[in-house]
């Protein structure tokens, strides 16, 4: 591996019609880190991830993975979309969904076979869902759906993982399982960029963070970037009492 950044974003602007949703974003994600993307609703977090994946037209800017454009590094990038982005009533099984992670490597027409099934079972075991392989996906709970999506990304065996709200609406047990998995992936040298909504757990879970609200407010190691001032810039004044429990400057009850 070279010293190139896992993800390198320069001057990224994404617009919806005339209105910029992301404005002039610069970001460098070194390899092997677990990085959160936080920001208020409508800040463009999902848009940012989708722009990185080439799912949205980019108005300006440059995105590179390990010093190569997205098209050339696609097989090294795995995506975990929001759980609500698909119809969980679709007639298919858990194992089938996980095997979809191999479709890209399989290429056109070739069917998934024994090898793909084994890989899918291994991935399901890693997320603690091996007993559910034959289940129909409509029988899953929210946390189980989330873990199926994680397993689907695992079988991609990627170097970079982009995840959109993997902790959204899951119970405490699943949250534990997910963060353990993310840490294990990091210790394997993989890079993870995770859209996250729970400010209380940012310091515990992540080693880097980007604060986003249309523009990049701050990014870097959590202890440097995740400051009250930066949070206030990102969220507006409301944030002060949200953090009052665990920050030194909590004695500011005058928050509007």
């Amino acid at each position: 591996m070279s010293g190139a950044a896992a993800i390198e974003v320069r001057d990224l602007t994404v617009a919806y019609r005339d209105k910029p949703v992301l404005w002039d974003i610069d970001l460098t994600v070194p390899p092997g880190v677990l990085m959160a993307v936080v920001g208020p609703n409508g800040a463009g977090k999902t848009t940012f991830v989708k722009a990185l994946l080439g799912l949205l037209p980019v108005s300006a800017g440059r995105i590179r993975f390990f010093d190569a454009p997205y098209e050339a590094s696609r097989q090294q990038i795995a995506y975990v979309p929001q759980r609500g982005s698909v119809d969980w009533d679709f007639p298919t099984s858990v194992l089938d969904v996980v095997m979809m992670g191999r479709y890209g490597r399989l290429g056109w027409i070739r069917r998934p076979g024994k090898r793909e099934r084994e890989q899918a079972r291994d991935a399901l075991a890693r997320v603690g869902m091996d007993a559910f392989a034959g289940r129909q996906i409509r029988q899953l709970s929210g946390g189980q759906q989330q873990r199926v999506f994680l397993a689907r990304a695992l079988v991609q065996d990627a170097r970079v993982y982009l995840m959109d709200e993997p902790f959204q609406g899951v119970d405490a047990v699943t949250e534990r399982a997910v963060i353990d998995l993310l840490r294990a992936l990091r210790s394997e040298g993989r890079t993870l960029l995770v859209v996250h909504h729970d400010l209380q757990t940012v310091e515990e879970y992540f080693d880097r963070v980007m604060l986003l609200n249309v523009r990049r407010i701050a990014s870097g190691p959590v202890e440097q970037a995740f400051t009250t001032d930066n949070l206030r810039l990102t969220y507006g004044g409301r944030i002060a009492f949200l953090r009052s429990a665990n920050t030194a400057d909590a004695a500011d009850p005058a928050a509007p």
Partner: protein
Amino acid sequence: MEHLFSDYTLRMVALGSAVLGVVSGGLGTYAVLRGQSLLGDAISHAALPGVALAFLLTGSKTPLALMIGAALAGWLATLWILSVTETTRIKYDSMLALTLSVFFGAGLVLLTWIRQRAGASQAGLDTFLFGQASSLVWRDVVAMAIPGGGALALMLLFWKELKLLAFDPEYGRTLGLPMRRVDLLLTALLVVAIVIGLQTVGVVLMSAMIVAPAAAGRQWTDVLWKMVLLSAGFGAAGGVTGAMLSSLETGLPTGPLIVLCMGAIVAGSLFFAPNRGLLGQRLRRRRNAGRFQRETVLLDLYALGMQHADPLRPHPQGAVQAMRAKDLPVDRLLMRLNKEGLVRRAAGGWGLTDAGLRHAETLRKERQ
């Protein structure tokens, strides 16, 4: 002679509508799963001017020429819908309705004009409105089977890509699979499935052949390939029944009869399918309600026993009833539990059996 003729007609009618039912049922599965049921309606209505123009240009009513005209018009309409919704603010459903009626209107104008200009020789074209299965001959069946079979073969070949398109197209794009091209392929297959049914079912009701079999099939299974098979089977069954009925009783157009048969199949599936069917749901709810009541009584008996540090100790029925509302039929529930071997009659009333004790203990663990 008369008998032989009608036999041949019936055979062709059955064969043709079976082919069409299998193809439209199979491919309709994807349209229904993707929430694109109305696209089929737009394509079939849009095909009418294609049929009329093909007749005007070639002057013949050979099925192949008319089908190609219909397919081109349906395909054009789809592209038009897709490109307008992508580039303007007009919504998808508005665009469907608009395209459907504009193309259909154009088709009606052309048909009227042909009728006035060419006189009786165009009689065949009017059947494209509501369908006429009894006019099917061998070359029609062949003209339906070849493109229809080809469409089904392509569906099987691109099974994995189509499944991904229907379930999670955006994820498919991140895998590097060209989902847009897969989408166009599916649309093309849908156009084929619709076009081959126009002569038999007619443009007005053809979309039911796409939607109804899949909607019925969905009720019976949660496995995609089973749903495709069932849907194809339902399509064939409804198609053949309706077409036979219309051929026996002359004068009744085929399309409406087929649609009525499909409607009956859908209604039956909505009602009787084991898991999703209304009947099954109601039965299951009642069964569960009874089971929950019995479990309550079992746990009550256990709790009463535990008050004496002996879970197996019998208690009178009145003591159990006193723990619950008056209208809970404790006597019936105890009888039923007795039959299941979970409680037994004893000197002091009712007591748990060993099996009943084990069951109560598992329940306590599960429910806490």
